[in-house]
């Protein structure tokens, strides 16, 4: 199978800060490829380079077979892009937004007259075609953007956090829509998201990016299988004695333990077996178990394994390099 995207040792520096540090990967045609990572990890910078919005400092990439540096215009004709910021004109109607962009892409009149209603139908906005975008909800606006990004029938579709800020219902609707559109059209999709559960369900392969580097890349199933433990136990205790973490590590089937205050995350190859042993150990040590949950391994666990921190914690740390427009304090 041919590669729709081929990233080759790409680097982006802002001053002395390296936002993307020599990342390489390839996306096959027809794949839904997820880029995961916290704010400041470098995934938006990476996507901006791939869509020709930012020039790389070193390395390059081929998108649709075209070099992003030497053949930028060919790349632009090949791709559809939904940037992180809302880029539709709020004053214009849904249909006008699609019309203007189809003209910007040079879509012939007959083709756009066919495509625009088709796309509006696909994103379920046909009845709202005459309404100004400013009158639509956040989820509907995102659907306008998706239709607009497809108005020239791109081969590769880039979506930078398309569900951020949407309520759960709208998020589900957007993902279902993307899956449906992907099956109807010959599309390769590269998507960035914070939502691991969604990426788990919908992406064929996932790359985890942290501190500008690629730390893991594989299918969600393989990634989950690659880390120790089939289950994760999360337990909290009252007054755990000194060395309690070591005690837990000795329990049967345990692969590893991490502690945050009184909360312990235990990787286990046999959740029920470890649970029984844990309850017994707590009883023997006269330690009260406050809460206990047993989960299957998730991409969150994969992320913790590969980056050493939880994604939800990382999300709170907005990096100064998250956007090239953000101000940097001297010395940081």
């Amino acid at each position: 199978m041919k590669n729709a995207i081929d990233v080759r040792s790409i680097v982006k520096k802002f001053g002395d800060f390296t936002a993307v540090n020599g990342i390489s990967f390839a996306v096959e045609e027809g794949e839904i490829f997820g880029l995961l990572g916290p704010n400041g990890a470098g995934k938006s910078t990476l996507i901006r380079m791939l869509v020709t919005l930012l020039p790389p400092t070193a390395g390059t990439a081929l998108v649709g077979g075209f070099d992003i540096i030497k053949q930028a215009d060919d790349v632009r004709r090949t791709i559809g892009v939904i940037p992180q910021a809302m880029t539709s004109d709020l004053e214009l109607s849904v249909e006008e937004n699609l019309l203007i962009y189809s003209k910007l892409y040079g879509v012939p009149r007959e083709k756009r007259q066919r495509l625009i209603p088709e796309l509006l139908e696909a994103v379920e906005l046909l009845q709202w075609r005459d309404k100004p975008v400013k009158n639509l909800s956040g989820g509907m606006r995102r659907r306008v953007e998706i239709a607009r990004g497809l108005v020239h029938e791109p081969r590769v579709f880039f979506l930078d956090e398309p569900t951020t800020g949407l309520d759960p219902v709208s998020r589900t609707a957007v993902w279902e829509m993307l899956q449906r559109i992907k099956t109807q059209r010959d599309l390769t999709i590269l998507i960035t998201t914070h939502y691991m559960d969604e990426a788990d369900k919908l992406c064929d392969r996932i790359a985890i990016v942290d501190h500008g580097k690629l730390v893991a890349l594989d299918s969600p199933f393989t990634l989950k299988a690659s880390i120790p433990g089939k289950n994760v136990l999360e337990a909290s205790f009252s007054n755990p004695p000194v060395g309690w973490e070591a005690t837990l590590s000795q329990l049967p089937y345990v692969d590893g333990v991490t502690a945050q205050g009184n909360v312990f995350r235990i990787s286990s190859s046999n959740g029920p077996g470890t649970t029984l042993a844990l309850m017994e150990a707590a009883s023997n040590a006269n330690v009260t178990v406050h809460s206990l949950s047993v989960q299957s391994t998730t991409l969150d666990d994969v992320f913790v394994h590969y980056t050493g921190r939880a994604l939800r914690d990382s999300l709170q740390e907005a990096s100064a390099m998250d956007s090239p427009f953000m101000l940097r304090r001297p010395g940081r």
Partner: protein
Amino acid sequence: MSRMWAIVERELRRFRRSPILIVVSMIFPLCQLVILGYAFGGNVKHLRLAVVDQDHGLPAVKIRELAQAASSGARTVDLIDYADEGQAVHDLRNGRVNGVLTIPPEFSRRMLAKNDPKVALIEDNTDNVVANALAGNLSSMLIAYNEPPTAARVPAKATLDVVEVYPYVPYIQYLLPGIVVMSIFMMVMIGGGIIFIDDKARGLHEGYLVTPITKFELIAGFNVSGTLKAVLAGLTIAIIGSLIAGVPNPLDPLRILRLFIVIIFTAFALISMMFLIMVRVSDPLLPRAIFGVLNTVLYFPSGAVYPRQGFPAWMQAIATVDPFSYAVHAFKSLLLKNTGMEAITTDLLYLLAFSVVAMTAATSLFRRTL
């Protein structure tokens, strides 16, 4: 170039949905035309002149009669008799009168003896316009006073005959050309390159920067759409302003056609200049902050409100490169003199050259990436 027209279409569709913007952009120049035109254009009248006659002789009576005649005719001055010069000067200092005409006690005797007779005007020189009007009025009065009772049939002195080529131009008409340029500039500020900066601030530009549009198509699109908006404003103000200012034959089709051409050239030159100034700006507050500075630097040296010949050298230098100057000159030719194209060819050529240079520079400085 179809992509350029897509940008133009986008801008005009957005513009059509903001009618209030169109109205607001035209109100300011019209207010300026009416307020400044009538504030500065009128003759000064009803200045209160205190007359202190300390002589009471026949020549003094004649002076007072001439002053009275001026008061009744042009009504430049209203006479108020004072017996005490001290009181009159006191009232002058307190703003109750605008000047004091003193006829000293020896005036009649000196007049008859032809021994340097003088009357005095004590004026409030903090207000130059009033002071000059009073001095001018009283000087004319004294010239009339000094005329011999019977004039020679053929004057022996050289005199100047003034022939006016055009009908009298009131100040409001003199202001109109500058106001038309101002209205174009207002629309350029509101609807030109500033829209790209707003798009940048809102992140909208990422949407069209990922399309295959070229730098030139993008800049030309913004400039052409801005020009169309500015032409709408300029033509409206030129016609409404002509009607308000009383320009003869304001709806003459040939003149409107010529005005239309100058408005297009002016609008394109100004919008190209603005895009060049703003090409690397990202902060949407900056264009608004510098609007006042730009307006002052471009508008006042252009000769729109005062003849360029009265400027110091450095201001003349600004006026020489200022596109406002050429636009104002062209509009003056058309609105005040109703000339043909010959009189404005140089102006149009300069505006065209200015547009080409500004747009070329903007295109080379424009960043196609973030």
